[in-house]
């Protein structure tokens, strides 16, 4: 088996899910055997070398003047197709972030390879790879197989995590020059803006979300203060997003983002089915709500029955004290 992991770049760094793709590739290798190779597009040497501490031993980076500091789904899919062809890849793994979600299906079409998105588990059943994937925003999980010989899948962020090893593997980096012309860039990126100092709910290890229980949009500053102490991202329920209190990018739930942080703190959120769907795969859940019968407590590891506006300032102050001491 030839197993490849696509290592996406955001800004000038490899995205953290690049390392998770390597971990997933090694998991597939352990299940079915074969060789693992990393694919990168326009990433500098120093960044590429960081993958050695995640056990990667071979990496191919596509370089071309037209690829410098840009992104275009059609052109990147073409490059990825060429990389996978040149290595006769059987299994291609991409992170389930925006780039992976649009490149994976495109490359799958070019090979008529089977595709499955948002995988959270991989098994070997009688020599066949079985993929586990949440459906209905995590209300259910399916086990499925791809009937094609070539397989492409994306992995959910925060699942295939690995720590950097103390010692780096011996990494061989090769350069690949794709065949590309200006016309391959069907979509031209005009700009990319990194949101500064603001963590994305889908990215963060800790998320603090607020709902109607905050009573008014200005009270979200209490959520922001708690999030700051914890180094957390701010999330929101659909009710407060629909009311215009918070931007849609913060919405957690079935019509927002489905997330699996290490710690999820739901404040003043009752726990409608569609919200629970988006956050119930969080590793640890804390609920703060004044209604002790709120459904959110049924999925909580720890609950505080109390009014958000009263609890939040005290909790934030105590956390500040404790976390600054250590």
């Amino acid at each position, binding site marked *: 088996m030839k197993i490849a992991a696509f290592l996406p770049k955001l*800004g000038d760094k490899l995205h953290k899910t690049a390392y998770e793709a390597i971990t997933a590739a090694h998991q597939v290798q352990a299940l079915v055997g074969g060789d693992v190779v990393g694919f990168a597009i326009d990433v500098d040497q120093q960044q590429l070398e960081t993958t050695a501490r995640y056990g990667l031993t071979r990496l191919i980076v596509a370089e071309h003047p037209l690829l410098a500091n840009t992104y275009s*789904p*059609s052109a990147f899919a073409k490059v990825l197709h060429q990389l996978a062809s040149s290595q006769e890849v059987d299994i291609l793994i991409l992170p389930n*972030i*925006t780039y992976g*979600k*649009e490149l*994976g*299906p*495109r490359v*799958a*079409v070019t090979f008529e390879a089977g*595709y499955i*998105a948002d995988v959270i588990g991989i098994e070997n059943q009688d020599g066949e790879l079985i993929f586990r994937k949440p*459906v*209905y*925003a995590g*209300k*259910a*999980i*399916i*086990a*499925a*197989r*791809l*009937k094609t010989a070539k397989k492409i899948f994306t992995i959910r962020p925060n699942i295939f995590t690995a720590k950097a090893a103390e010692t780096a593997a011996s990494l061989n980096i090769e350069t690949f020059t794709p065949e590309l012309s200006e016309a391959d860039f069907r*979509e*031209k990126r*005009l*700009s*990319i803006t*990194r*949101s500064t100092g*603001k963590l994305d709910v889908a990215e963060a290890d*800790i998320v603090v979300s607020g709902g109607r229980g905050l009573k008014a949009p200005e009270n979200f500053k209490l959520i922001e203060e708690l999030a700051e102490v914890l180094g957390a991202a701010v999330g929101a329920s659909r009710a407060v997003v629909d009311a215009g209190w918070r931007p*849609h990018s913060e919405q957690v739930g*079935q*019509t927002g983002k*489905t997330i699996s942080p*290490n710690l999820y703190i739901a404040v003043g959120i009752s726990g409608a*089915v*569609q919200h629970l769907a988006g956050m119930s*795969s969080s*590793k*640890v859940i*804390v609920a703060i709500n004044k209604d*002790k019968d709120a459904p959110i*407590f*049924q999925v*909580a*590891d*720890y*609950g505080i*029955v*109390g*009014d958000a506006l009263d609890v939040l300032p*005290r909790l934030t102050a*105590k*956390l500040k004290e404790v*976390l600054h001491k250590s």
Partner: protein
Amino acid sequence: MNILICVSRVPDTATKVKVADDGKSIATQNVKFILNPYDEFAVEEGLQLREQHGGSVTVLTVGGQESTDILRTALAMGADKAALIQLANPDSYQVAVNIAQYARNHSFDLILFGRQSIDFDSFQVPPMVAQLLDLPCLTIVSQWSITNGTVKAERDIEGGKEEFETTLPLVASVQKGINEPRYPKLPDIIKAKSKPIETIEPVAVEPQLEILSMEIPQTERRHVILGDSDEDLEKLIQLLREEAKVI
């Protein structure tokens, strides 16, 4: 501008999912099926573009006979035509191949989707259709302008924003918030009931995905419920640090 809107029929977001007797699909008894919420934004966007640029809006779905209900919802919102490619329980690849074939047989300037279907959440059909048709594709668009065949679009990505420029014909998916979908009015709902829906035979293509089983995830939770006293808040912090070890 001739616009194709591809829609899907999904369980209402309030559905409590149960596994059917076959062990690999959801039990549909007492489940309300709706037009995929993100597709409402696609339909609305198509209607607004038609208002600005003229042309027509066609809604298309791939599914069983029951899927005519969501096509009627889109017709009530104001779509001109509706078509059903009759293929029960298709996988995403079969959907993409069928949509691409329909698009080849017609002439569309824009093929529009909601950003994801909230059943399988795979985001995969729009890029597949674009690749099959060799068209540019922008996904999860939150804002855009279309002038003389040139498209400028903005979207959120992980930890940032991107702006793109591309041209029609285009495949695109839209994000919640790009517009406010209209509610169909009662007379339009009644009128939509008698509008014709074209039924089309599917392209013969094998599914790539085989579902083997479905289960409801069970996560063991600790269920330690405390009050709101200072002592309880301190206890919570201690538990998060020493028992759960997450802070």
